[in-house]
């Protein structure tokens, strides 16, 4: 395994507020890490430290083994950054934006133009190449911004909330592009407030809240470990709801009822068969009995203090 991003005990304060308390990260080369958390959780601070824009107060971070504070220039050689706002120059055309960065990075005129045109092509912007970026839609701007961060052929890219504010269509397009870059072997660290995005793109998820990591794992393990499946029972005879509720409570130890359906969060599958048996013994006819897996949304709300308050 080649480690692309490693961080140990990253901490950062801004005046009185602790933006990060202690964050550890490990990202294997060629994978996608989703850094998930509500607004103000510290996601952007992590990205800015890893992208050499901020110095941590404590802790260390390495990009392909290069220390972000001790050899930032080495790190800058291999990273690409797209911030929360599309950092494109509105008064330049799409191709000029990329040409500019290519030239800045020392490419020859022809080389820079070649890179610019192929990136525009890859990102579906060829038709708009010669229009100024101010005429671009939100989705096009984001794509151009992403293209801009790839001009230097980075091995690791940081995407800070890449799809915030995009409509579903534009968002899907951007997701496809990100997946394409991952297939090309780029390592991605992406921050997002959207669980769906993390679920769709990330191999691993780290959930941060109030400056520290509150959970980590693959999307599947997070769902399994944190969220418990919900059992739903609806008796055929509405009058028997209370009996069902009592019975579920006895087996699982909790229940909620809306007078029609009884719900309970199950701990293990044994409880399920126990319920079925007990219902059968009691002679209660069941109209519906189901187990629903938790959504990442529920997991997220359970994990984050800010999320829970909403």
């Amino acid at each position, binding site marked *: 395994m*080649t*480690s692309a991003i*490693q961080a*140990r005990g990253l901490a950062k304060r801004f005046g009185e507020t602790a933006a990060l308390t202690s964050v550890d990260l*490990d990202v294997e080369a060629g994978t996608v890490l989703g850094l998930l958390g509500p607004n103000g959780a510290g996601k952007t601070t992590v990205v*800015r430290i890893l*992208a*050499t*824009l*901020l*110095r941590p107060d404590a802790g*260390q971070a*390495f990009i*392909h*083994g*290069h220390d972000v504070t001790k050899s930032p*220039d*080495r790190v*800058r*050689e*291999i*990273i*690409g*950054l797209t*911030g*929360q*706002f*599309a*950092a494109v*120059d509105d*008064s*330049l*055309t799409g191709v*000029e934006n990329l040409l*500019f*960065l290519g*030239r*800045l*990075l*020392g490419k020859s005129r022809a080389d820079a133009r070649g890179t610019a045109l192929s990136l525009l092509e890859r990102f579906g912007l060829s038709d708009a190449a010669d229009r*100024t970026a101010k005429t671009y839609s939100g989705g096009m701007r984001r794509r151009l911004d992403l293209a*801009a*961060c790839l001009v*230097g052929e980075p091995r690791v890219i940081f995407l800070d909330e890449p799809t915030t504010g995009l409509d579903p269509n534009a968002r899907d397009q951007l997701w496809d592009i990100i997946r394409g870059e991952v297939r090309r072997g780029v390592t991605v660290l992406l921050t997002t407030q959207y669980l769906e995005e993390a679920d769709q793109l990330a191999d691993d998820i780290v959930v941060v809240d109030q400056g520290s990591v509150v959970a980590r794992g693959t999307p599947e393990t997070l769902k399994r470990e944190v969220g418990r499946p919900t059992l739903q029972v609806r008796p055929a005879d509405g009058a028997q709801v209370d009996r069902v509720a009592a019975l579920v409570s006895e087996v699982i130890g909790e229940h909620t009822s809306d007078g029609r359906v009884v719900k309970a969060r199950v701990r293990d599958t044994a409880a399920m068969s126990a319920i079925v048996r007990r219902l059968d013994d009691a002679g209660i006819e069941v109209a519906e009995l189901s187990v629903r897996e938790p959504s990442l949304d529920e997991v997220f709300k359970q994990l984050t203090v800010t999320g829970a308050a909403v």
Partner: protein
Amino acid sequence: MTAITTTEEAPQVRRRGPGSAVRQSATVAWRQLVQIKHSPETLVEVGIQPVIFVFLFAFVLAGQMAGSREAYLQFVVPGLIVQSTVLVTARTAIGMNTDVTKGLFDRFRSLPISRTAPLIGRILADYVMLVWSVVLLLAFGMLLGFRIETNWGQLIPMFLLLLAFSFALSWASVLAGLLSKDPESVQALAFGLMLPLTFISDAFVRVETMPGWLQAVVKLNPVTMLADSIRGLLVGGPVGQPVTKTLIAAAVLLVVFAPLALRAYHRER
């Protein structure tokens, strides 16, 4: 604690050093100037102000100031050139702030390029705008009666002096641009500073007409020094002393503001 090792050699660092810093600055300047192609109205925006001022001073103020339009133009055109220099420099601050607020500077800072190239490049591009506005100002001034009494060759040292002065003053402008929270506040700050700077000088009015205590201030104002230099160069009169003073003032501005601006640029945002 996991052992942390360098897993692969990074590509050779090849984007540093003075040679590439110059090239990168030129690239940033190119980026500024190519914008003109897409919005040529910028040239009008930059050019309109000196033209309006020449008109205003030649027709509205000249009679009271010097009795005749021609006489006052000889005095005031050099002053207006200085005013243009100061105003174009204010544009640097606004553009700088736009880049910061839009995240372009974050991208620059995450690239393996010279730290000063984004700043120097913009200053260079704005110098081109300055030359344009001064050329326009001189042309319009001459149309209304301004005459170069020395010789045309003096324009060369004048433009070099403007370059030195605006380069130095630009760092103050860069600092303002980096520290302000949005382009509107830069604009407010720039005009709050630029107006007194140009009016409490001898750019438009002879220093002898002012109260004694103010004369002391006016004589210390770099705008006065630069205006006197340009008068000397284009209209005649002492050159050596005002030019020396201007260069010293520029050096002081540079020494004070360049480090502050660079610090603000590296400051964490």
